[in-house]
């Protein structure tokens, strides 16, 4: 698929696409909050998310044609004005957020009824759109402080959304609270870091910041700023020992939120971290390399091994998959830590792959949760017989997670491993391989239970997911497969994104 040839909107619309992708969900959020009924809220949500995704696609096409897009809000030029700045990396992540958000919105029509109190549906949709707007904004913005604002906009939305899971599982409440505390600490660290950088450079525009940092001698403020930013974003991105909030939030929140967060939230934070690591901190920032090599890589490896093992032994299915997400973040960080274009490109590709497959898996579980309120792994025994399509979609996601050939996950792992080998990091390569095997073990457990075990007598019978769930689910699964065979779309964006970042730092 040639992205350059992709014209999905009128040029006039395309020109405004970046801001529309943010604004439409934001406005939608307001509208949804005021919507007369849950049904109406849902429709607003679907439409807004869809428009946002559409705009993201238009942006992606534009980025491939034009390179970096600069969009000046209100026509004020940076550094005084606030700018949106989209490169291929941002376009890719925004596209992921848009796509998953749209499918999640469609999915919410059925899942909310089962999981969230009816009177909260409109507010829930509002929160959801807020989160989506925040994330897209975070990805598109070119301003370090704005990024914080968007980060918090999306986070505040998600805190509330996680808490909304209390109807089904009251553990959602303390989980949401922990998430809130950790998230806020992380965000505040980030703000402090930005403050230091601002103090040192006098600008908040990331591009300017990068340019000025290049001319500055290293000083304590820059170094402290770096430390605060990566630690803060590490919390948001669920970097290994800072991931404590994640399993609870994913496992106990409503399935809509699990799927949306798993696919996008950590990705957005990782995206921001990548931006700082490879774009803002320039050439001379040897501590950046040291951080990659001595902190990010070991922690990534630890995440891969430890959290995969935790997933192996977890008994609640969603918790298992949540642990798996932390482990997968470890894979992505391993890709980053290679600190070269192929590593970054592979990591970006991996983020996309992971977003799609995790979304599919959580969505499938959400679909099943409509009929069986199951949590434990054993409760899913034999669901493949009652709900074959859902189970198959889950299976495809799981296969992609393991890295089965012909799925996107395989290509993702392949690229990181090849990059690791090319970079001479044999140990990263080995950790990747070991992590894949552990992944295989826990995924194998799930598949065995779902497909090859008889349901326990007297257990509630699963039903096939309703069409409203099945369609987005199959689209997600299909994307995992399609990109496993023809990966040109995410591949081009990832490569272009990585290349543009490393042009800054040749």
């Amino acid at each position: 698929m040639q992205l350059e040839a992709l014209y999905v909107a009128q040029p006039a619309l395309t020109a405004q696409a970046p801001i529309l992708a943010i604004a439409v969900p934001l406005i939608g959020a307001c509208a949804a909050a005021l919507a007369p009924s849950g049904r109406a809220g849902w429709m607003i949500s679907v439409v807004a998310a869809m428009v946002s995704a559409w705009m993201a696609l238009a942006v992606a096409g534009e980025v491939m044609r034009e390179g970096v897009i600069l969009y000046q809000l209100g026509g004020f030029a940076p550094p005084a004005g606030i700018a949106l700045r989209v490169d291929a990396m941002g376009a890719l992540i925004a596209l992921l957020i848009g796509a998953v958000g749209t499918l999640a919105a469609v999915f919410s029509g059925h899942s909310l009824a089962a999981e969230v109190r009816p009177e909260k549906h409109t507010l829930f949709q509002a929160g959801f759109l807020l989160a989506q707007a925040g994330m897209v904004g975070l990805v598109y913005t070119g301003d370090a402080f704005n990024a914080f604002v968007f980060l918090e906009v999306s986070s505040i939305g998600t805190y509330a959304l996680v808490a909304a899971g209390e109807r089904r599982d009251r553990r959602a409440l303390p989980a949401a609270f922990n998430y809130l505390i950790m998230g806020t600490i992380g965000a505040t660290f980030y703000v402090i870091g930005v403050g230091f950088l601002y103090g040192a450079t006098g600008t908040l525009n990331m591009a300017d910041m990068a340019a000025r940092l290049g001319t500055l001698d290293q000083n304590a403020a820059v170094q402290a700023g770096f430390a605060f930013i990566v630690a803060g974003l590490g919390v948001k991105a669920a970097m290994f020992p800072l991931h404590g909030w994640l399993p609870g939030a994913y496992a106990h929140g409503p399935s809509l939120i699990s799927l949306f967060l798993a696919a996008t939230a950590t990705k957005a934070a990782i995206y921001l971290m990548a931006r700082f690591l490879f774009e803002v901190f320039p050439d001379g920032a040897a501590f950046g390399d040291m951080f990659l090599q001595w902190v990010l890589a070991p922690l990534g490896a630890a995440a891969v091994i430890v959290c995969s093992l935790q997933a192996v032994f977890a008994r609640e299915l969603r918790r298992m998959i949540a642990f798996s997400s932390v482990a997968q973040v470890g894979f992505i960080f391993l890709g980053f830590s290679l600190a070269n274009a192929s590593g970054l490109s592979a990591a970006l590709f991996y983020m996309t792959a992971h977003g799609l497959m995790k979304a599919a898996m959580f969505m499938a579980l959400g679909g099943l949760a409509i009929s069986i309120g199951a949590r434990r792994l054993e409760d899913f025994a034999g669901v493949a017989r009652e709900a074959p399509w859902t189970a198959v979609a889950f299976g495809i996601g799981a296969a992609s997670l393991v890295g089965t050939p012909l799925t996107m996950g395989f290509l993702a792992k392949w690229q990181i491993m090849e990059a690791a080998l090319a970079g001479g990091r044999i140990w990263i390569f080995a950790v990747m391989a070991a992590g894949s095997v552990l992944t295989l073990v826990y995924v194998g457990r799930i598949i065995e239970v779902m497909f090859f075990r008889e349901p326990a007598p007297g257990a509630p019978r699963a039903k096939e997911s309703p069409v409203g769930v099945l369609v987005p689910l199959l689209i997600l699964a299909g994307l995992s497969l399609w990109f496993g065979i023809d990966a040109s779309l995410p591949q081009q964006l990832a490569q272009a994104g990585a290349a543009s970042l490393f042009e800054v730092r040749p």
Partner: protein
Amino acid sequence: MSWIATHFNYVVVVILMMAGLFIVFSSGNLIKRMIGLALFQSSTALFYISFGKVSGGTAAITLDAQGAEGQALAAQLDPAYVAQFGVEGVVYSNPLPHVLILTAIVVGVATLAVGLAIAVRVRESYGTVESDEIDAVSRVAAEQAEPAP
């Protein structure tokens, strides 16, 4: 000593920040944690504001140096200074940190509100806001859900 004197604002920021974080980490009470968090965020606010202040600087108001307001401002300033730099060269305190932190405070308030709301829900659901007790209840629930292997 002189270092402390010149950097006293940072010292205060750090003390506030540590106090806030300590409360967040050590307290089991959800409300107290929220208070700690608020303290922590406040320290950030202080941090921003303090480095935005330039000693001797004025408020950052764009004005016409030749107009009446400009003349009024010039009258307040040290004539030697005006002679050297002109009215255009007047030192402003950077306004941007204030603007930023205003935003940050809004965000912080929103966070606080959500957090407290959740705490209320926790209290309704669990009957307590002590995290130890919540954990204990959750663990019991978890063990009921998951028989020992």
